[in-house]
């Protein structure tokens, strides 16, 4: 049709289903890790070890999905611990062992999450506060809620919640199924709905999105609301899985939540989000700890390995390899 070059052919082709570079990177890394486990630490891959660690991978995955939504919009959410912990204490304290009160508790937790997310969103998306500051403040307020509800004392979770969150179907923990279901929802909404497609575009370039008249602020607010809802889901699962959850259950999730987002390939500067990669990264990080544990490394080494994996992951995505290559192969030219 046109001279030279390649005219855009095969319009109907489904090439969008081709995996992205980010997905390939994290999937290959995970496969390599599984291989390493099989060779060096087979005990990490036993049913017992996996069924012990997978629920935590699932929870990390859900929290990571929430953090990803915020990071995609160029934000950063430090209110993860507060959000998770509040859901945990509401679900374990309010019913106080009474299964009948559980639905109310869940509804209450969700309402709290919506309010917290909305406040975050308004502070950041509309009042233009820095995301770090606003979510530090929100985190403190959420913890105030945690102590108001629990007084800092752990309480045993209800039977019903324990069976919902901790049960198994065909040997797969419910929490894993929940994580997969939430991933499916996030993925579908993001990739196949009008709102999701706009959401991605706004994260990738808010200025361009505004120039074509998209409601940029509303979508940014939504990111924080949905993130809190996901943290809340994670908190409810924790409340069910852990027999006696503490008030600080969410603290240990903050840094890993950022780590899995970064390892999943989502840029901290905002842009496209990678839900599937994020979830695989959560599995990767959990398996990495398991691996380190199985080969007998102390806790310290596990942490250092995680830091290195994170650094390596960032390097893979953020180094401009091509720019680096030209830097070494030819002298640079300054363009005016």
């Amino acid at each position, binding site marked *: 049709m046109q001279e030279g070059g390649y005219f855009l052919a095969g319009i109907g082709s489904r090439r969008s289903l081709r995996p992205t570079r980010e997905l390939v990177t994290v999937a290959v890394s995970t496969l390599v890790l599984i291989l390493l486990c099989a060779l060096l630490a087979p005990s990490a891959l036993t049913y017992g070890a996996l069924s012990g660690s997978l629920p935590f991978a699932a929870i990390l995955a859900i929290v990571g999905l929430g953090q990803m939504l915020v990071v995609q919009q160029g934000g950063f959410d430090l209110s993860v611990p507060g959000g998770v912990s509040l859901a945990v204490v509401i679900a374990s304290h309010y019913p106080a062992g009474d299964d009948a009160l559980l639905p109310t508790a869940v509804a209450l937790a969700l309402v709290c999450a919506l309010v917290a997310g909305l406040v975050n969103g308004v502070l950041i998306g509309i009042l*233009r506060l820095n995301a770090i500051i606003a979510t530090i403040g929100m985190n403190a307020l959420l913890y105030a809620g945690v102590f108001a509800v629990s007084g800092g004392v752990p309480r045993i979770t209800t039977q019903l919640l324990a069976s919902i969150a901790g049960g198994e179907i065909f040997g797969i923990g419910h929490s894993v199924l929940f994580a997969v279901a939430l991933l499916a929802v996030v993925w579908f909404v993001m990739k196949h709905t009008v709102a999701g497609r706009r959401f991605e575009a706004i994260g990738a370039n808010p200025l361009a999105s505004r120039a074509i008249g998209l409601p940029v602020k509303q979508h940014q607010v939504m990111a924080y609301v949905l993130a809190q809802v996901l943290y809340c889901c994670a908190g409810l699962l924790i409340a069910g899985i852990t027999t006696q959850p503490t008030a600080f259950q969410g603290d240990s999730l903050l840094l890993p939540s950022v780590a899995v987002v970064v390892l999943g390939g989502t840029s901290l500067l905002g842009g496209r989000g990678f839900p599937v990669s994020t979830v695989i990264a959560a599995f990767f990080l959990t398996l990495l700890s398991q691996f380190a544990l199985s080969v007998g490394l*102390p806790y310290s080494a596990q942490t250092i390995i995680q830091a290195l994996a994170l650094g390596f992951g960032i390097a893979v995505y953020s180094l401009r390899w091509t720019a680096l290559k030209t830097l070494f192969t030819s002298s640079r030219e300054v363009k005016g």
Partner: protein
Amino acid sequence: MAKDMQEQDAEVVARLSGISKSFASVAALTDVDVTFRAGEVHAILGENGAGKSTLMNIICGVLRPDAGTIEIGGQSLNHLTPATAVAAGIAISYQHPAILDDLSVIENLKVALPSAVFDDDPRGVAQGILQSVGLEIPLDLRCDTLTVAQKQLLEIGKTLALKPRLLILDEPTASLDQDSTDLLFARIREVTAAGTGVIYITHRLAEIRQIAQHVTVLRDGKVRGGGRVDAVSNEDLLRLIVGRTLESTFPPKITEPGAPILVVHNLTGRGFRNVSFEAGRGEIIGIAGVQGNGQTQLARALAGLQPFEGDIRIGTEAFPQSRLLDQTAYMPADRHAEGLAGDLTIRENAALSALDRFASMGIMNRTREMEHVGRTFASLAVKAPSIEAAVSSLSGGNQQKVVMARALLAEPRMIIADEPTQGVDVGARAEIYRILREVSASGTPVVVNSSDAVELQGLCDKVLVLSRGRVVEALTGEEVREDRIVSAAVSAATHDDHAMGGQGVARVKRSGWRHLAQLDNAPAVPLLGVIVLLAVFGYSQNPHFLSPLNLSNILLLATALGFVALGQTVPLMLGAIDLSVGPLMGLGVMIASFFILDESSAGTIVLGFVLILAMAVVIGLVNGFLIRFANFTAIAATLAMFIGLQGVAFLFRDAPGGYITYPVTEVITMKLGPVPVAFLVLVALAFLSEYMLRGTRSGIRLRALGSSAESARRIGVNTDRVFIGGYVISALFAALGSVMLMAQIGVGDPAQGANYTLASITAVVLGGTSLKGGRGTFLGSVLGALLLTEVLSLVTFLGLSQTYQYVFQGTLILAAALIYSAARGRAAD
């Protein structure tokens, strides 16, 4: 021989011979010969893209020519570097001034000029510089309150202060009013009389007559002619400027315009005034003018991106701003910034404005999307390896076609194209013109803003020429010719009449209150007030709150946090962040728990402290290098460091152990009355840091970098070194914090310290440092740390539950952030 040469060419400041330069095989300059002489104003004239800025960049060493020689002061050189150009006495004042908004006037001068300029009386010299360009503004005024014109004058003042041998002025009067222009011309006459050579770049013929003795006209990168100004007529100059070749074909224009379809009446907004025009069905409207005369703003207003007063009607319907934004399609000049989402695929970009049409009940229908996008792409002849390729992988022309596809898919009521063919290859240009013509013929109004008069001549049926925001000429039909457009644009002699957003006022009265409230250290006063009030309140509830014991406890706790907060202030001022400070403190204590024990010798103890500092330096360096050279974001780099350091701490000990020797602890917590000496040290360091920040060059450089990395680089700040240095300082302060922490907990506990990361950020924010970078206060950070500690102590003292502790913390930081952002007036941008 050399002496002969010099005497013969005494009046030549710079001579360029046979200069050629091309970018990616496109010639920007071809075989240019120019001679600039001392004591003479030499005007360079030419349209946008004629090669003027490339030539200037070669003269000041930013670009290296492909061929030709430069002769400066009799010495022949192949090329210059920015440093050698400065050493040779070449100074340039850019059209877009490198003035840093967050710095005061005098600080802007200090950071940009060599210290030798200031002798022993910096304020006197600075005052003199301001006077030289007729600026009557307070030296301590922050530059974000200056108008564009004032910044331009300040920039020129900076350049003049260098007393250059060759002074380059790039469209210096673009934003100046008549008075300032006259003053500037007087100054130019003075410096030329003193023997300086001046290169004056302009678009205005009238100015050349006023100020220049010599003129050279560039077109398509070649010297087209020139000579002594009094020997050439305006008509001659115009003939030299126009006649650009544009290798492109244009679709035929319409012969018979239809009924008016777009009516714009009395449009006024930021940058333009009283613009009225009509477009008949099938007519393409062009907006022309010398760059920066309101064309872009007019285009943006038409697209609903900028507020305006007046009427816009399309067909019979009125279009207020929100409706324009919604229903018109805007093709931005800067495709990367405002046009495309480079991360997303071609399909996603193109479909973005029409998603609703490809969806049922909010769920995308892939087949429909593919069909529409594919059909539009085919009609635009977009060339791409795949519809799913990243849009950033396309050539400029094809990227622009994706923007067009998106515009067409939206089925807009009007298309506004801002520089539609910038960075577009010849082949794609013709297609873009064809499509715009087709759109226009189908009854959708098309408005094109272009700095290329040839393009407007070929494409448009009606062209509005703007000067200083007003329409100075409306050309239709046969009148739409390059020479008419250029002539109208460059001959307009109107000067800024203060109507455009109050620009051009050279004076600012100091309004005392507002000035004080805007100082970086202003938050210290209310903070101190809150701290005292809380103390009084605590005392009224329980007198023991202010007992010497509790007082010294609060101060001691605040000292540890205060040190980290001082450190954290630096990265935040750079517009970055350091998350690794908390674990760094923990690691410091860990080191102490091996070296500073009861059984340690004095030497070992000293070694322990040295090791702590050394560790801090290394961590700061690694953070800085990761961010500057490995392209990590600040959050990512310091987060990885955070996790890593925690791991290292557990590597040393996995449980608390190693008791810090008591004598050392005693020294660290030594008191003077109820006040710990360490707290006094903290306050002293805060004052010292304040002094360094505002009084020394490095401090001003640091703030310059945080304010605008681009401008800082242009005025010669070594950005990498300053940035990495900032991270080292942050780490060193955290090391001091770890000294306090070791006395507090007395034992090596690997789990300690991490909390200080968020606490330090909280303290700094309470103190009033902006996370946007450029502004900060060390005193505020210390007070923030004090306030935070005081609140925690108060909660315990009042017997309140932990709930209140968190409520206070959360409310404090949110309230502070909201108040500060409102006070800075940046809240709603």
